[in-house]
């Protein structure tokens, strides 16, 4: 196949638009890491789980399409707080590895429950109505670049969710408490902030973001499957590392970057080899820039 420059630009555009879902997942990982300095490995599982809850409830009650995108995030938030209670709340707070292992257990628990309930086969996920039919073309110095309507919607919805998160974190008392706990847990506790309550809220926020990401990712692909969970986990983690653990703007930029590069690798090397290069990217960063884009500003590890 003859790959021209325009094909690469086109796949970069598609990838960056889709990459906003990776940015959301990376944001959730980084939010939880920022609050507790712990990795929640079950995060992507609870996000996809949220999308499944949205789909299941909507189909059972025969609700309209947009109901999925309301119930999905709620389901994600509930699953996420459940993960917090089971895998973080009652574990010794200085034992990072125990929490890590517990959340890996949670990951397989959620993943296997989904596989069990759906017999492991993918389910059709409703596409984004009029958005999936829309297609924009822009002429740019005699190249025609296309923008898929559903991916633009995905990007738009992701950025809306990110803006809401930023507002919550930096403009409300709730966000103040969350940031206080993430910076100085003991001092925050002495100021009368309940750590467990704040952490639960952080998990709910992250879970809602994850639920949105899960729904958007499934909607733009058109199917939802338990096979989405592990790749999304690994890519979310890579986004978190490349952006810098705990850095919010880093996660957003890295998410778009990973999405774009993934799409270019897909074009150049095919679907079977695509993820190899995405994962190798992580090692490039570990060697040359172990703190990621913005990791230096939070010097914890």
């Amino acid at each position, binding site marked *: 196949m003859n790959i021209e420059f325009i094909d690469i630009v086109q796949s970069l555009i598609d990838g960056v638009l889709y990459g906003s879902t990776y940015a959301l997942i990376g944001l959730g990982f980084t939010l939880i890491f920022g609050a507790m300095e712990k990795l929640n490995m079950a995060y992507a599982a609870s996000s996809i789980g949220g999308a499944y809850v949205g789909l299941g409830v909507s189909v059972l009650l025969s609700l309209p399409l947009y109901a999925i995108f309301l119930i999905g995030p709620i389901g994600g938030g509930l699953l996420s707080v459940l993960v917090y209670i089971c895998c973080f709340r009652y574990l010794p707070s200085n034992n990072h590895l125990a929490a890590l292992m517990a959340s890996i257990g949670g990951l397989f628990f959620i993943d296997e429950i989904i596989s069990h309930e759906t017999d492991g086969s993918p389910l059709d996920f409703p596409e984004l109505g009029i958005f999936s039919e829309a297609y924009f073309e822009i002429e740019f110095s005699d190249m025609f670049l296309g923008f898929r309507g559903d991916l633009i919607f995905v990007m738009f919805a992701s950025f809306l969710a990110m803006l809401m998160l930023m507002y919550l974190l930096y403009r409300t008392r709730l966000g103040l408490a969350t940031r206080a706990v993430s910076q100085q847990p003991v001092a925050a506790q002495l100021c009368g902030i309940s750590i467990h309550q704040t952490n639960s809220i952080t998990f709910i926020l992250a879970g809602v973001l994850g639920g949105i990401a899960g729904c958007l990712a499934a909607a733009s692909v058109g199917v939802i499957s338990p096979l989405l969970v*592990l790749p999304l986990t690994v890519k979310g983690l890579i986004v978190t590392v490349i952006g810098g653990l705990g850095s919010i703007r880093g996660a957003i930029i890295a998410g778009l970057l990973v999405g774009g590069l993934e799409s270019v690798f897909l074009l150049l090397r095919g679907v079977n080899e695509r993820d190899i290069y995405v994962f190798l990217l992580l090692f490039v960063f570990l060697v040359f820039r172990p703190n990621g884009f913005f990791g230096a500003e939070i010097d914890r590890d």
Partner: protein
Amino acid sequence: MDYYLGVFQTIGVHTLLGLSAYILLLTGQVSMAQIGFFAIGAYSSGVLTVIFSWHIYPALAFGALLASFFAFLVGFPALRVKGLMLVIATIAFSEIVRLITFNFVWMVEKDGIMVGADGAQGFREIRYFTTNGWESSQVVTLIWIFVVIVMAMLWWLDRVKAGAVLRAVGNDELAAQSSGINLTTVKVAAMTAGGFIAGLGGGLYAHAVSYVDHITFTILMATFAISYPILGGTKNVFGTLLAVIFIQGILIEAFRFLEDWRLIIFGLLIVLVMNFMPDGLVSAFKKSTSGKDK
């Protein structure tokens, strides 16, 4: 009888996998890369016996050495960053290896049939044992000889200075560094040794079951590998063996009638153990008894 031999074989291979994670866990590092090293050992020794018609022992040794070489390479960048970052890096490594085996094609014609690795179809016909007339009981014995050797060496390690150094790093990195221990050397050495054991296990597994493919090397298996020493505790090597017997022998084999519920229970089990015994089953037991003496 063959069924029980199969169970023994699985327990033996998984014990090697668990021990390879155990030696790294002694230094306080959680590695999800063991299944990647296992895959490297399985594929490279398989290529040697099938395509190059090597004898089994040099092939196993080569597979283990190649795996430990990769462990050495991965160790450096991954261990520059601590704990949680290592987990992410090693997950990525295992997935890279799995995807490479997924794309790996190397087939040659032998006696009129094509043999070797065939990408997503997996690596079939690793028939060294059957063509050379080994009984399945002999194969199981060979695996367990290696298990016993590795366990004995790790047991002995705890009685010499090197073992004390490993545990010192695991207990308190700062204190270990202050006593003149080079953290990177110790961790990379543990990673290399772990890679060797996992590669050996992979080579044995590939020849014992005669067929491997990328589905063998998923993150689920990496989780199995690290969960054995964590559930069994790092008190001594027998904890890992007990955990393997418990999970593979009882949960996976004896409860076969539970079908896919077993993996759900496996997830739940890890969550429960971490909640009630964050230091693992064996050390939790030791703590409760030694508490009375104080």
